[in-house]
């Protein structure tokens, strides 16, 4: 498909719809993909609420006349628990103000309790943001990095090893470990990029396979006492990293776990934006992503760009693993990499492939993660419903036409990363 633009006359896509109001609304939406995203989240919240209500045994076994009130109370309970678990719990605020004096309240940890839900949201968001960037940045260069998982593990292994196996002075140690985590992930990203550049193997296949390889390599390392396994332990776990390698907590050693890893994630998001939009390297990466032929003709080294962007992405995912090891878990076991590498794809999709979007999407999913225990215990809403909720959000975001149809918005040429990502498998 390369017909010259000039020979194509305006086609039906631009055909006007009747009514000035809808036109004004549609104009507001055109290019304003944020609106679509917000509508998608709202729609998903409604759908999720319905699911939560009508899978709840209390609602299912209620007498016919009682179903609606019961359902309403379940939905309300679920979203109250979500709010209390991820942003602020009014009870803790009340408790804070019931204390005798402000200094004692702060000293006894009541202030910490007020901000703890936000802290947990940030903690859960940190690896999601970093791994999300690892998907979003290569996407701008035309690459699908499905290997967040392997790169995250790579970062964990190296940062953990540097954390417990090497002793260094206090500030230097943590810096070395963070750099090590970046390198650990970057090596895996580089490998995927290099394989694609040299052999043309599709990076999706390569990165998926590396995910398996790294998961089992980690299991092997953790089961070998001479390698990473904690001496004298039969569990699959590494020794604890030295306290000099811990990422400092932002609000002292209290209950709030939020640590420098979150700031690192925000800095990386800014750095990724700056790299892609303000530097010559970013210009090159974006050009290669948008049109590799034209980039090559303009003298850019396309293969070099692939390798570079995958290395950067791997490093970012590696930092996500580092933040887990040095920020909250302080040891590596076969489960603490979770599903961050895969969830990262969802985060990048919801963030429309842009660093700022990834931060917001990471925070949203972080909030859902942080609140899901509370939703389960308080509202009896199973954690699976939370996962369905996130999936429904992404489903709507990935299909803007669906949202536009539902809200009767004029169809526009879909340019967002959401749609192109799902189309891109043919590339």
């Amino acid at each position, binding site marked *: 498909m390369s*017909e010259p633009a000039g*020979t194509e*006359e*305006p086609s039906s896509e*631009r055909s*006007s719809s009747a009514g000035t109001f809808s036109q004004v609304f549609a104009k507001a939406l055109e290019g304003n993909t944020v609106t679509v995203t917000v509508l998608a989240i709202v729609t998903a919240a409604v759908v999720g609420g319905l699911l939560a209500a009508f899978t709840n045994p209390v609602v299912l076994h209620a007498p016919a006349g009682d179903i609606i009130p019961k359902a309403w109370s379940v939905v309300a309970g679920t979203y109250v628990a979500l709010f209390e678990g991820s942003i602020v719990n009014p009870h803790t605020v009340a408790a804070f103000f019931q204390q005798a004096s402000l200094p004692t309240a702060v000293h006894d940890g009541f202030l910490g309790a007020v901000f703890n839900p936000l802290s947990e949201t940030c903690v859960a968001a940190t690896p999601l943001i970093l791994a999300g960037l690892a998907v979003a940045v290569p996407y701008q260069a035309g690459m699908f990095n499905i290997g967040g998982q392997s790169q995250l593990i790579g970062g964990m292994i190296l940062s953990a090893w540097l954390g417990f196996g090497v002793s260094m002075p206090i500030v230097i140690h943590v810096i070395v470990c963070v750099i090590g985590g970046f390198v650990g992930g970057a090596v895996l990203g580089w490998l995927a990029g290099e394989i694609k550049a040299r052999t043309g193997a599709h990076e999706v296949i390569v990165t998926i396979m590396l995910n398996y390889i790294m998961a089992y390599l980690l299991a092997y390392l953790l089961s070998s006492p001479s390698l990473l396994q904690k001496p004298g332990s039969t569990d699959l776990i590494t020794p604890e990293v030295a306290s000099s390698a811990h990422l400092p907590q932002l609000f002292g050693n209290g209950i709030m776990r939020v640590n420098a890893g979150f700031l690192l994630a925000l800095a990386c998001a800014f750095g990724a934006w700056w790299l892609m939009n*303000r530097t010559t390297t970013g*210009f*090159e990466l974006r*050009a290669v992503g948008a049109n590799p032929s034209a980039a090559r003709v303009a003298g850019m080294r396309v293969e070099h760009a692939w390798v570079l962007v995958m290395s950067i992405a791997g490093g970012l995912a590696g930092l996500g693993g580092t933040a887990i090891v040095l920020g909250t878990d302080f040891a590596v076991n076969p489960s603490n990499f979770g599903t961050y590498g895969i969830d990262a794809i969802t985060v990048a999709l919801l963030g429309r492939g842009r660093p700022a979007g990834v931060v917001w999407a990471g925070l949203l999913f972080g909030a859902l993660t942080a609140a899901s225990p509370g939703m389960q215990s308080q509202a009896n809403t199973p954690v699976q419903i939370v996962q369905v909720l996130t999936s429904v959000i992404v489903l709507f975001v990935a299909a803007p036409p669906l949202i536009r149809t539902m809200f009767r918005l004029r169809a526009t040429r879909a340019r967002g990363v959401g749609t192109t990502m799902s189309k891109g498998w043919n590339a």
Partner: protein
Amino acid sequence: MERQSVSGMQLELKGITKRFGSLVANDGISLSVTPGQVHALLGENGAGKTTLMNVLYGLLQPDEGEIHIDGKAASFHSPKDAIGAGIGMVHQHFMLVPPFTVAENVTLGIEQVRPGGLLDAGRTRREVRELSHRYGMDVDPDAIVEDLPVGIQQRVEIVKALVRNASVLVLDEPTAVLTPGETQELFRIIRQLRDSGTSIIFISHKLKEVQEIADTITVLRRGKVVGERKPPATEADLAALMVGRDVQLRVTKAPATPGDVVLSVDSLVVPAAVSSVHGTPATASTQAPVNGLSFDVRAGEILGIAGVQGNGQTELCEALMGLLPVASGSVRLNGKDLTQATPRARLDAGIAYVPEDRREDGLVGSFSVAENLVLNSYDRKPFARGITLSLPTIAANAMARIKEFDVRTESPAAPAGSLSGGNQQKVILARELGEGTKLLIASQPTRGLDVGSIEFVHKRIVEQRDQGVAVLIVSSELDEIYALADRIAVIYEGEITGFRPPGVDAAELGRLMAGGTDLPNTPLPEDAP
């Protein structure tokens, strides 16, 4: 569904108006197509030809106006309605299923079924053979479409329309994809169809072709009918109608004053590509696309490489830019060997390149005009400061270049892909024609452009020559070669069959383009299909 002898159909479009938002693509167009005539629609890109035909074919609904068939109003809500009414359309981009046979493609959608639900493949094949024979189309019903040359694929489209009993056949820019030989074949078929009573609507922006084939010429400009002519109308007259002012079809240029040799190509061989820039798979042919080419281009002269498309021109240009590997031979710029240099090194050495496929190779469609204007200089001063981009400088450069080259864009931040073909080409020229250019390589620089843009591009190229730049033009448009070249080289199957002065007559160039050599009294090889 045996095809009956064609009963002529009187087709009339009355006051068709089609708007897209604020843009009026068709503004009260009326058109009357007489049975058994070739009716040409002539207009620049964007004049509204394709929109009008999409209205006729039921793909678009007109905002105003009516379609009349034999005096009765008809309304088409889908192509199915239009086909049912006897209208056939051959799109610029073929609607064929490449791995299917010709017969399968023809029968697609109107499958003949025998009792028991089995396909009656034999019947379609007979029909294709019969039609092919009647109009001298030489189409084999059992051939696989993707193996066929473009010209034959087009005939398959025509057969498709005829099998559906089309009595009005719309051909949208049918010659854009054809070689001159194939064009002549198409014209022969069109004449036979016309003589048997089919009406043809022939859409084009090429003056010569329209004059050659049309019985009536309707000229469109900015969505309106601006004139109707019967051949022979003068080309200048038609061109003036199309663009709304008098156009110089010939570039006025001073005689060349060639200087030193700038580009020297010696015995260049480019092997059959494993994959080109576009990643197209290797063909089975072992013949090297560029097979021992030698030529020089001097400062201040334009060397035009003429030839039928597909004789190694694309590969030659890509090899000169370092985009394809070279097997043997050498490329020198001002005596410096660049045979193995990277594309970047060649650009740095002062080569400017206007690629054949501007959308694929020349521009990043989703990038802004401003970004495209620095696509190969973004990392150099003054557009880069260290590792960062200097956005103010890039913006200022865009404003200056847009003004200088009269690029019609709503803003420098508009995506280049949203511009018309002519304006896209202006962006590429604005980027490439800068300070320090020693050699300009332009491949098909005006393909798909309207008359006004062609004139602009040609003037700029001659301007470069006059400033002492060596210029290499590769074009399959003889008009372009004549308009620009100070010296003509003809390429055939990857070899140069001869150099000629610009005054040489077209027959002689045609002989060389068909593989004739410089040796006198050589019998002309037959141009096998």
